[in-house]
């Protein structure tokens, strides 16, 4: 294998270029957020601030009420959505993993068919707004993402079916354990790997979701951080116009850098904890790709 060693520097060189290509937009974003506004106006966004300034962040600190509120919404929907979504999924997946369950194939098909066909945006929107009146409620940010479709359920079902021996379940049942007791004291503890993986995917989905907020939420107080960022992207004056901070603002906020600072604050938490969950994230992506 020694002959291969000459390839290594070339391979590393290629990856250093790829890594740079992946990272440079982020570097530009961060650098722009700490550049003096007048320097942005004359020199544009650049990789090295010609004049360093934290003005954008101190402006956002004045506006912190709006930021904290949006972060609060995001954290709330992420925790509730992930927990409830995981619970509902596991409760549905477990019976479907039991081959002895009557009507199993029909019910499994009911779950599976949601992957093949969907009614699309218009009927979904009308049902949530006209039938269930969820417009401008927190529910609209939580409910649509709980399961989305049957995909995660099928993944969990496969895990249950393959890794929990039927004999254990049967003997527990014969010993008089109820199905619920079997579920929470045997099935769930044995399934922590898949539950953690699916939980992570749900967490990321909720944290990143801006679509439900875009269509169901018009009330700025209910904006998640993604929706706040979304509005600021299209309308740079959004924070100021809505006076969400509840404070008197300076006449000329440094908007070009504030915008970038907002985005930095929006991605920072996810990027900071990414190294700790990346292994599970990769695992989640690969089990999702192979057959459920």
């Amino acid at each position: 294998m020694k002959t291969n060693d000459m390839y290594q520097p070339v391979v590393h060189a290629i990856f250093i270029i790829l890594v740079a290509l992946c990272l440079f937009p982020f570097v530009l974003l961060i650098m722009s957020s700490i550049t003096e506004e007048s320097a942005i106006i004359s020199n544009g966004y650049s990789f090295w601030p010609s004049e360093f300034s934290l003005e954008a962040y101190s402006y956002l600190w004045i506006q912190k009420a709006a930021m904290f509120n949006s972060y609060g919404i995001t954290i709330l929907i992420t925790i509730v959505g992930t927990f409830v979504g995981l619970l509902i999924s596991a409760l549905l997946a477990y019976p479907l993993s039991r081959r002895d369950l009557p009507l199993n194939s029909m019910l499994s098909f009911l779950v599976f068919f949601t992957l093949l066909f969907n009614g699309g945006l218009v009927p979904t929107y009308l049902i949530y707004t006209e039938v269930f009146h969820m417009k401008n409620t927190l529910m609209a940010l939580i409910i649509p993402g709980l399961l989305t479709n049957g995909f995660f359920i099928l993944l969990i079902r496969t895990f249950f079916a393959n890794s929990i021996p039927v004999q254990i379940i049967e003997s527990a049942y014969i010993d008089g354990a109820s199905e619920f007791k079997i579920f929470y004291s045997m099935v769930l503890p044995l399934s922590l790997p898949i539950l953690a993986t699916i939980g992570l995917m749900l967490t990321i989905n909720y944290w990143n979701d801006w679509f439900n907020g875009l269509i169901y939420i018009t009330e700025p107080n209910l904006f998640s951080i993604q929706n706040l960022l979304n509005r600021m992207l299209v309308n740079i004056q959004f924070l100021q116009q809505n006076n969400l901070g509840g404070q008197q603002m300076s006449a000329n906020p440094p908007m070009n850098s504030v915008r970038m600072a907002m985005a930095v604050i929006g991605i920072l938490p996810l990027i900071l904890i990414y190294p700790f969950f990346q292994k599970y994230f990769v695992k989640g992506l690969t089990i999702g790709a192979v057959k459920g």
Partner: protein
Amino acid sequence: MAQTGWTPFFKKLKRYRALFLMMIPGIAYLIINNYLPMFGVVIAFKDINYAKGILASDWVGLKNFEYLFKTADAYIITRNTILYNGSFIILNTVMAIAVAILLNEVRAKLAARFYQSVILLPFLISMVIVGYLVLSMLSTESGYLNLNLLPMFGMEPISWYFEPKYWPYILTIVHIWKYTGYLCVIFLAAIIGIDHEYYEAATIDGATKWQQIRAITVPLIAPTITIMTLLAIGRIFYSDFGLFYQVPLNSGPLQPVTDVIDTYVYRGLMTLGDIGMSSAAGLYQSLVGFILVLLSNYIVSRRNKENALF
């Protein structure tokens, strides 16, 4: 013995009642979130009038579809959707295979993990953030390209968000940037699964790296490539809404080249309030999408039953 077939069935239901109870929230959810909208596609055949309510609105037959297909819109959004997704499938697959093969060559484990994490980072962030990243490059008054990069080559600034001709390239680059990492992870998992003995035997026979890649790696991950590609083709009628909505900042002048079925449906519903047209476009997408999923799955199952979705 005189029992009918039903009595044991009900007895069985009683025995399994706890399991059925567990399924109620999930099934109820799927009915509300997935099945009601499926039946809701009949909206496309109605003239929705909020005053009358959805159910009581008048039936108009295929009129919504007639309108949709009479305009140039239907052709434009279908063309854009298929051309974009088609090129994404080809370019992403080629890029991801190349990167996955290279990543597998990195001997230092720590470095390999670092590279993979960074390449996957764009996949992790939301399209809203991507919108910001692109804006910092392309903003007309302060973007990096207009103020720093183009002047280096003596070029004039460009009003990126008003010039449709650049956007097919911009959107393609952004898509590759965001999604190569994901596909690469999938292909890498397949490559790692290849038995090392093949490579050892090939090395003893004096095969070069390039020969090994062509004769061992690519053929052995071919099933994964085929499946991922067919699944993507099955979804070719659905676009990444965020890419086509957030990244061009919903800019009107760009619409001829950035409008896909998903953005058209969204705009019809949320901005124009034209429910008839947008639900017709939505049903057109759902139906063709459904047929394509069935078709691509049929092809997968003909090649390899194991890998088919159903």
